[in-house]
C-alpha cells in the first residue's frame, strides 16, 4: 500500500522582550534559580497581570510578516491544568480569538515554492521548570521562565514529509529571527517545535489518527523523530494494529519516540476568558506604524538577489540565512559593485568558515565589509590571485589592517609582467630537460609539474592564466 504522510507543526517562539508578558520581572537567560520570579510569576494572592506592549507588538510584526490577519480585538483565556511549575493552576493563553489568524510560510517542493498555511498565532505565557533529581525524593521548581512571553504559531497539516516539516521550521525560524521578535536559540529553548504526524492511504481524504511528538529542539532531531514516527505508524497499521492518539517524546539517544501521557489523562483544559485581562485592542494606526518598521523580508530579498544580482537560488538562499548576513553581503556589494558572484562566494566561503571556526555571529565578524571589499577589489582587478587573497584574508582576520597595505608591504602583487614570467619558465625548462623531453614525447601530465614549480618560484604570485599560456607556448617548442 502507498501511504501519504500528513504533518502539522506547533511552534513556541520565545518573544525577545526585556520583561515578562504579564510582569516586570526580567527574562534574561541563565539567572540563579527563582531570582527572576516576582509575585505575579509566583501567583501570590492579590496580584494582577498587566500586558507587555512589546510582546503584543512582536505578535503584530509576525502577523504582518507572515501575511496573516491581526485581530483588532483578541481575548486572553485561562488554560487550566495542575503542575507545580505552573503556580496559578492555569496558563494565560488565547483560545477562541487569537491575536493573529491565517498567514503562510513559503517552502520549496519539487523545485517550486508552495505555501504552508498558518492556522493562527497566539500570545501566551511560558511555565517554569521542574528538576527531578537530587532533592531527596522531591522535585525542585525554578520559576524564572514562568511568565516569559511566547508566540505559539500553529500550521495547517500541509506538510507531506519529514523534510518538508524541517524546511517549514527552518523558514519560520529564519522569519522570526529576521524580524527580530525571537533570538531563535534552540539550545536555550527560545524556539521549540511539536509535530503532529499521521499517515493515510494515498488518495484518501480523511486524515489518519495523529500522534503529537513533543519538544523537538533541533532540526536534525525533528527530521529523525518524524521519520521514526512515520515508520512506526505504517508498520503498526500494516501489521493489523491501529494508531492511538497520544503525545510522544523523542529520545535522540535511541532514535525512537515513546508515549509520554496515557490516554486516561486526555487533556481537558476547560478554557474560559480570563477575567483578570480585558480584551486586547489593536487599532489600524498601530498596525500601520509596525508595518513601517518591518525590514524587507527574506522571501523578497532572496528573489531580488536572484533578479538584480544574477545569483543562483542556492546562493541567494545562503546569503539570506539571516538578516545580519544579508546586510553584510549588501554592504560588501556597495564596495565591489557588479561582482555579486565573487562577493557571494567569499561571504558563504571564507567569511562563514572563519565565523564558524570562532563560533561567532556575523555581526561580531573581525573583518568589516569595507575591509573584505578592499581585498576583493584586488582580485577583481587582477592585482592578486585568489590563493594569495585567502592568505591576506587570514592576516586581516587575525591582525586587522587593509588589503592594499598588506599587498604592498609583503610584495604579494601578482606578476602579470610577461617577460618576468617568461624568464621563470625558461629557467625551469633549462633546469629540467628530462621533463621537457617527456612532455614533448606526449606525456602531457608533466605540464602540472611545470605549473607547480613555476608558482613556487614566484611565491604563488603568477597570474595563473598567463602562466599557463606561456608554458604551453614554450613547452610546445
Amino acid at each position, binding site marked *: 500500500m502507498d501511504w501519504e504522510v500528513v504533518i502539522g507543526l506547533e511552534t513556541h517562539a520565545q518573544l525577545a522582550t526585556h520583561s515578562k508578558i504579564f510582569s516586570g520581572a526580567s527574562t534574561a537567560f541563565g539567572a540563579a534559580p527563582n531570582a527572576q520570579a516576582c*509575585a505575579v510569576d509566583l501567583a501570590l494572592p492579590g496580584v494582577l497581570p*498587566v*500586558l507587555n506592549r512589546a510582546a503584543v507588538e512582536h505578535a503584530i510584526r509576525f502577523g504582518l510578516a507572515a501575511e496573516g490577519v491581526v485581530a483588532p480585538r483578541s481575548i486572553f483565556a485561562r488554560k487550566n491544568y495542575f503542575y507545580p511549575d505552573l503556580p496559578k493552576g492555569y496558563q494565560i493563553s488565547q483560545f477562541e480569538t487569537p491575536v493573529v489568524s491565517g498567514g503562510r510560510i513559503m517552502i520549496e517542493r519539487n523545485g517550486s515554492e508552495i505555501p504552508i498555511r498558518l492556522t493562527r498565532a497566539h500570545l501566551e505565557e511560558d511555565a517554569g521548570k521542574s528538576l527531578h533529581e537530587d532533592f531527596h525524593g*522531591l522535585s*525542585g521548581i525554578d520559576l524564572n521562565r514562568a511568565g516569559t512571553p511566547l508566540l505559539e504559531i500553529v500550521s495547517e497539516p500541509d506538510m507531506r514529509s519529514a523534510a518538508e516539516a524541517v524546511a517549514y521550521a527552518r523558514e519560520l525560524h529564519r522569519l522570526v529571527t529576521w524580524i527580530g521578535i525571537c533570538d531563535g536559540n534552540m539550545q536555550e529553548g527560545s524556539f521549540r517545535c511539536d509535530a503532529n504526524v499521521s499517515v493515510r492511504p494515498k488518495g484518501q481524504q480523511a486524515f489518519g489518527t495523529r500522534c503529537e511528538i513533543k519538544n523537538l529542539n533541533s532540526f536534525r532531531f525533528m527530521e529523525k523523530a518524524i521519520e521514526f514516527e512515520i515508520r512506526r505508524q505504517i508498520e503498526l497499521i500494516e501489521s493489523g494494529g491501529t494508531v492511538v492518539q497520544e503525545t510522544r517524546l523523542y529520545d535522540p539517544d535511541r532514535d525512537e519516540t515513546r508515549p509520554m501521557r496515557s490516554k486516561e489523562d486526555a487533556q481537558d483544559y476547560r478554557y474560559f476568558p480570563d477575567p483578570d485581562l480585558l*480584551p486586547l485592542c489593536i487599532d489600524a494606526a498601530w498596525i500601520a506604524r509596525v508595518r513601517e518598521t518591518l525590514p524587507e523580508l527574506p522571501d523578497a530579498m532572496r528573489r531580488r538577489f536572484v533578479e538584480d544580482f544574477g545569483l543562483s537560488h542556492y546562493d541567494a538562499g545562503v546569503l539570506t540565512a539571516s538578516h545580519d548576513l544579508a546586510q553584510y553581503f549588501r554592504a560588501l556589494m556597495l564596495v565591489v559593485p557588479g561582482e555579486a558572484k565573487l562577493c557571494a562566494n567569499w561571504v558563504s566561503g571564507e567569511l562563514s568558515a572563519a565565523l564558524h571556526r570562532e563560533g561567532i555571529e556575523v555581526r561580531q565578524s573581525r573583518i568589516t565589509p569595507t575591509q573584505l571589499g578592499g581585498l576583493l577589489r584586488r582580485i577583481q582587478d587582477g592585482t592578486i590571485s585568489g590563493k594569495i587573497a585567502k592568505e591576506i584574508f587570514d592576516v586581516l582576520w587575525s591582525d586587522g589592517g587593509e588589503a592594499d597595505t598588506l599587498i604592498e608591504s609583503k610584495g604579494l602583487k601578482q606578476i602579470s609582467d610577461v617577460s618576468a614570467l617568461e624568464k621563470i619558465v625558461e629557467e625551469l625548462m633549462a633546469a629540467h630537460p628530462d621533463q621537457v623531453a617527456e612532455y614533448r614525447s606526449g606525456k602531457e601530465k608533466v605540464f602540472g609539474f611545470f605549473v607547480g614549480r613555476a608558482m613556487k618560484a614566484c611565491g604563488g604570485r603568477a597570474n595563473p592564466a598567463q602562466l599557463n599560456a606561456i608554458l604551453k607556448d614554450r613547452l610546445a617548442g
Partner: protein
Amino acid sequence: MALTENDLRHLARLARIRVEDDETGPMLAQLSGILGLIDQLQAVDTRGVEPLAHALDLEQRLRPDEVTETDRREQFQAVAPQVEAGLYLVPKVIE
C-alpha cells in the same frame, strides 16, 4: 442536563478535589441544579449577539517593556514550606 457519577468523578479529578463516596449523592443533586439554571440561559435565542468576553466595557491597558522587579527571592522563599539551592521543593511529580 443530568450529570452522571462518572462526570462528577472526572471533574473532581481535573480540579484535584477529593470527593468522598457519601458526598457524591448530594453533590450530584446540587451540580445538576446549577446545570438546570444554565439550561434556562442556553434556551435564550442569542443569534446575532456578540459573545461577551468581559463584564467591563474597557480595553486592556498595556505597560512598557521595562524590568521593574528586583530579586526578592529570599523574602518569597521565607514563607515557602521547603526550599533548597534557590528552588521551591514540591512532592515528586514523576515516578
